[in-house]
C-alpha cells in the first residue's frame, strides 16, 4: 500500500513538473490587433519579450495612423488647430489640383510616393490609376459605408473622357501641380502596401528578426516563426474560410484584390470598388486576384507596394492578358478566381499552394 502511494506521488510530481516546464517554454509570440487605416491591422512578433514587442508594435501602429491621416482621400482629419478638422495633406493637394496648375509644396515622402505610383501606373497601361478619385467617389466608395448607388451614365462618360492620369502631375523640388484639373488622387490601392514597406524597414532597423504584419489583408513577412516560415491563409472570395495556405518566406509579401470586401449589390448585380479606368465601371469578370511578391532590390519599388498595386491591373485586365499584366511587373506568382469561380494559378504559384479542400479544381497558367 505504502509503495503504491509513493509511486503515485512520484508520477504526480512528474506530471506537475512537465506542466511547469511547458509554461516556462511558452512560445515567445506577441500578437496585437488594431483598427487603423480604416481596416484591421494585425501584427505578430516572434522571439522578443512582450514588453519590447508591444513597444515596437505600437510604434508601427502610430506610423500607420499618421500615414492614414496624411493620405486620407476624402475625410477631413481632426487636427489640433482651433479651426477644427482640416483636409489631409493629400486632400489639400487634390484641392490645389482642382484650382489650377499652381505648384504647392508637398512633403518629400509624398513626392517619392507619387513618382513611384506614376511609374507603376505607366507600367500597368493606366489600369492602376490612383488619379481617378472622382470616379471612385461617384461610385460611392469614398465613404465609410457603401450604399447602392445608381450612377448617371453620362457623368461616368464625362469623367472617363476627362482622362485623369498620373502623368498629368508634375513634381519637382517637392512641389506638385497637375496639368489636368480632373486629377483627384486616391492612394487606396497603394498606401497599405507602402505602409507594409515602412513597417518592415522600421522593424529590421530595430533588429526585430521575426514578424508578420497584416494591414487589411496585405501581408509582409520578416524572418520566420519557430523554425518554420510564416504561414498565411488566402481568403475564399465567397465562403467564410480560407481557400488555400502557403508559406511566406522572409521579405516576401502577399496581396489580394477582391470584390467581396468593398462592394454593394444592386438588382442582383455586384458592384465592387475596383473600377476599370477605361470604362469608368467596376470590373465584374473577376472575384479575386492574389499576388505573391519576392523581396526587391533596394532601389526598386518594394515588395509591399507591389503586393498592393499589381493585383489591380490583373483584376481589371481581360482574361487572356492576365499573365502579361503580371509579367509587366516581373510577378510570376499569382492566382485569379473569375466571376464563375474558376480558379487560375500561375505555374510557380501552383507549386506553393496547399489547398484547404483536396478536391479543388484549378487551371495552371503557362
Amino acid at each position, binding site marked *: 500500500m505504502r509503495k503504491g502511494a509513493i509511486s503515485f506521488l512520484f508520477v504526480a510530481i512528474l506530471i506537475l513538473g512537465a506542466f511547469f516546464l511547458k509554461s516556462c517554454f511558452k512560445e515567445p509570440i506577441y500578437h496585437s490587433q488594431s483598427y487603423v487605416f480604416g481596416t484591421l491591422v494585425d501584427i505578430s512578433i516572434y522571439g522578443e519579450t512582450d514588453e519590447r514587442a508591444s513597444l515596437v508594435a505600437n510604434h508601427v501602429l502610430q506610423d500607420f495612423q499618421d500615414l492614414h491621416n496624411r493620405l486620407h482621400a476624402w475625410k477631413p482629419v481632426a487636427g489640433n488647430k482651433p479651426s477644427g478638422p482640416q483636409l489631409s495633406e493629400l486632400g489639400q493637394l487634390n484641392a490645389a489640383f482642382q484650382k489650377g496648375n499652381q505648384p504647392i509644396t508637398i512633403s518629400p515622402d509624398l513626392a517619392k510616393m507619387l513618382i513611384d505610383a506614376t511609374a507603376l501606373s505607366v507600367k500597368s497601361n493606366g489600369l492602376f490609376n490612383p488619379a481617378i478619385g472622382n470616379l471612385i467617389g461617384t461610385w460611392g466608395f469614398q465613404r465609410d459605408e457603401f450604399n447602392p448607388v445608381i450612377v448617371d451614365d453620362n457623368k461616368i462618360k464625362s469623367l472617363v473622357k476627362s482622362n485623369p492620369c498620373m502623368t498629368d502631375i508634375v513634381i519637382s523640388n517637392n512641389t506638385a501641380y497637375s496639368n489636368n484639373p480632373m486629377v483627384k488622387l486616391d492612394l487606396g490601392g497603394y498606401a497599405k502596401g507602402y505602409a507594409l514597406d515602412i513597417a518592415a524597414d522600421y522593424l529590421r532597423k530595430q533588429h526585430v528578426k521575426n514578424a508578420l504584419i497584416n494591414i487589411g489583408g496585405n501581408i509582409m513577412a520578416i524572418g520566420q516563426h519557430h523554425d518554420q516560415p510564416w*504561414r498565411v491563409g488566402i481568403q475564399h472570395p465567397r465562403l467564410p474560410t480560407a481557400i488555400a495556405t502557403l508559406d511566406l518566406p522572409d521579405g516576401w509579401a502577399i496581396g489580394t484584390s477582391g470584390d467581396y470586401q468593398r462592394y454593394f449589390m444592386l438588382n442582383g448585380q455586384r458592384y465592387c470598388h475596383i473600377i476599370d479606368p477605361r470604362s469608368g465601371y467596376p470590373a465584374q469578370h473577376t472575384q479575386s486576384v492574389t499576388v505573391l511578391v519576392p523581396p526587391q532590390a533596394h532601389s526598386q519599388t518594394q515588395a509591399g507596394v507591389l503586393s498592393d498595386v499589381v493585383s489591380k491591373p490583373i483584376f481589371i485586365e481581360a482574361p487572356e492578358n492576365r499573365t502579361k499584366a503580371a509579367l509587366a511587373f516581373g510577378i510570376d506568382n499569382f492566382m485569379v478566381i473569375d466571376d464563375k469561380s474558376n480558379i487560375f494559378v500561375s505555374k510557380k504559384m501552383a507549386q506553393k499552394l496547399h489547398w484547404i479542400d483536396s478536391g479543388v479544381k484549378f487551371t495552371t497558367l503557362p
Partner: protein
Amino acid sequence: MLNLLHYPRLLIQELRVGDWLVVLAGLLCVFYLFQTLWSNEHATKVQIRLGDKIYATYSLNQQREVHVHGKLGDAVISIAQGKARFAKSPCHTQYCVHQGWLTRAGQAAICLPNQISLELLGETKPYDSLNY
C-alpha cells in the same frame, strides 16, 4: 469467459454476427471521433476581440448568445455547439452577419465599422494570418 481470452482462436469462433457488428460499430465510432476531434481544423473556442483588446474567449461547446458593445452599438454573437457567428450587428453593411457560421479553426469574421472580430481557435492554427 475468462478462458476465451486465453484462446484467441476460440474467441473468434464463438463470436456471432451481432458481436461482430458491435465490434464494427465500435471501430467506426473510434474512427469518427478520431476524425472529428483529432483533426487540426477542429475548433474548440471562439475569441472575441473588441478594438485592440481581447474581449473574451468562450468554449464552443455550449449554446449561448453574447452581447458585445462595439463602437457603433450592441452586436449579438451566437455560439452553438462547435460554431459561432454574428447574429446581429448595428453596422450598415451587415457583411459580418452575412459571413454566417464559422466552423473551422482559423476562420474569422470581422466587423470593421463596429470594431469587433471573431476568430475560432483550435489545437493548432492552420495559418498565422489571413490574406484577403
